[in-house]
């Protein structure tokens, strides 16, 4: 606890006699911002914003794809998480032919909004993934992967692709990577965001690991996946597959 020396305090006590006002009464309230409640928007602001808004709308209103269902996040497994991690895996597999990426994981906190059923606009993807985070490849052995899976289990599940596990008492079990059991000495290549790779979400175990940064943003990877699906005439179709389940 913070304490000042007594002498200093005495000085303050004498000089503070000059203060003239003291709190008498407090009234607290808050006012909703509702355009019926407050019908007149400040028109000079509207005009001021217009050139910015026009530029935003020109890009963000563009239709880029279509989804069969609404995608929301959920734990231990959610449609939105499956979609985002699959999209990152797919795009990176296409763009980095020399890398064999074993699995991908992201954090639910980074997926900022659900994606709607039906047509998707560019703006939807910016709202889903507003951050400028980049994808990172992290190389670790099987032992470290097990530790990571325990972290994922302790969180009650995180968005994953290419890996499956069960959660029992906050620990991971029956871990399968591309349907194969984990080998503790094997080197694995994990795809994730720079945020998580560098210790975000209190995930410290990957911070010192060997990494490669291909220079692709998470959002761009997701956009690229959606556009590739649209180009071949496909809609986005995501299902729950039991990637992470709570053990019975």
């Amino acid at each position, binding site marked *: 606890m913070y304490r000042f020396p007594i002498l200093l305090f005495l000085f303050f*006590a004498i000089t503070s006699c000059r203060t003239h006002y003291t709190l008498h009464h407090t009234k607290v309230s808050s006012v909703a911002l509702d355009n019926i409640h407050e019908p007149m928007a*400040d028109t000079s602001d509207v005009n001021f914003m217009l050139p910015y808004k026009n530029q935003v709308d020109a890009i963000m209103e563009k239709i880029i794809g279509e989804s069969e269902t609404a995608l929301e996040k959920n734990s231990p497994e959610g449609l939105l998480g499956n979609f985002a991690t699959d999209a990152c895996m797919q795009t990176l597999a296409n763009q980095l032919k020399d890398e064999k990426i074993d699995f991908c994981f992201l954090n639910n906190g980074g997926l900022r909004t659900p994606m709607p059923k039906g047509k998707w606009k560019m703006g939807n993807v910016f709202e889903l993934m507003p951050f400028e985070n980049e994808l990172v490849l992290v190389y670790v052995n099987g032992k470290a992967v097990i530790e990571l899976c325990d972290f994922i289990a302790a969180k009650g599940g995180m968005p994953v692709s290419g890996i499956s596990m069960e959660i029992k008492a906050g620990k991971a079990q029956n871990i399968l990577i591309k349907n194969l059991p984990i080998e503790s000495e094997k080197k694995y290549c994990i795809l994730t965001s720079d945020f998580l790779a560098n210790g975000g979400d209190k995930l410290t175990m990957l911070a010192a690991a060997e990494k490669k940064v291909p220079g692709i943003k998470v959002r761009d990877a997701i956009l690229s996946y959606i556009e590739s699906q649209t180009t071949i005439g496909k809609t986005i179709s995501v299902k729950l597959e039991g990637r992470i389940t709570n053990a019975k």
Partner: protein
Amino acid sequence: MQNRRTFLKQMTSAAAAYGMVSWPFETFAADEFVKITVLHTNDVHSHIDPFPENDPKYPGLGGVAYRHALINKIREQEKNVLLLDAGDIFQGTPYFNMFGGELEMKLMSRMQYDAGTIGNHDFDNGVEGLVKQMPHLNFPLLNTNYDVSKTLLNGKLQPYKIFEKEHVRIGVFGIGVDLNGLVDKKMWQGLVYNDPIESAAVTSHILKKKEKCDLIICLSHMGFKYPDQRPSDVVLAKQSLNIDLIIGGHSHTMIETPYEYFNRDGKSVWIAQVGWAGVRLGKIDFILRRKQENFDKCQYSKSVE
């Protein structure tokens, strides 16, 4: 689910109740009482346009142009208004992705904010991204627990600012959340996080004793409260001595009527926060009474310890 009409209805009845209990301030001699009106926002997150009409949670709510109109109206009615923001100005809509926060800051300046503080998302484009937009501000960003001397922010933040309204001195300072685990380290390299509770104690002591403030307001981006021992607005309120009001942010807590807590001396500390995205404007009126005799103030300062 709440539509705009029921929302409006609730607000109208709240306003009626508010009118009934309002302090008969006008009946007192004008120079004996001074009313200070504090307006506040937090976590606006680049929400410049109102939410769309089909938004499940906040249909048609928010929007800078509406907020500005409301602020103007209150400024016409009230003599001594302070407009404050508790951080996370940036990130959340494509306006930020496309213009890096330029429009957010220009609009806040147009609304004549008096002061703001920095939230974790204000580092989303790094210290550099924040510094780049700061020339668009005509008000200071306040923080007292980040040591930024080894970053580009050096000299660009103020620990506190004092406002004088009808001889009432109002001290406003800011404190920020631990960025560790919240923001990628490379975005805030060189910044040193100091204990916010201790920094707040030091700063509010200076404001009370040295700067002779009558009212002390903390802009906090720590979050309202946590199940663990992390620093929060509630922890600060209980451990503080000189703070009258904590305007919070970070936890996106919608506090419809600010909560009253009690500090180490048993004096009131109000905690306010208005959710996020600018769907609501906080309003707190402080009525201060002039002390006729110096003796009263001496008694008061003794009780401060």
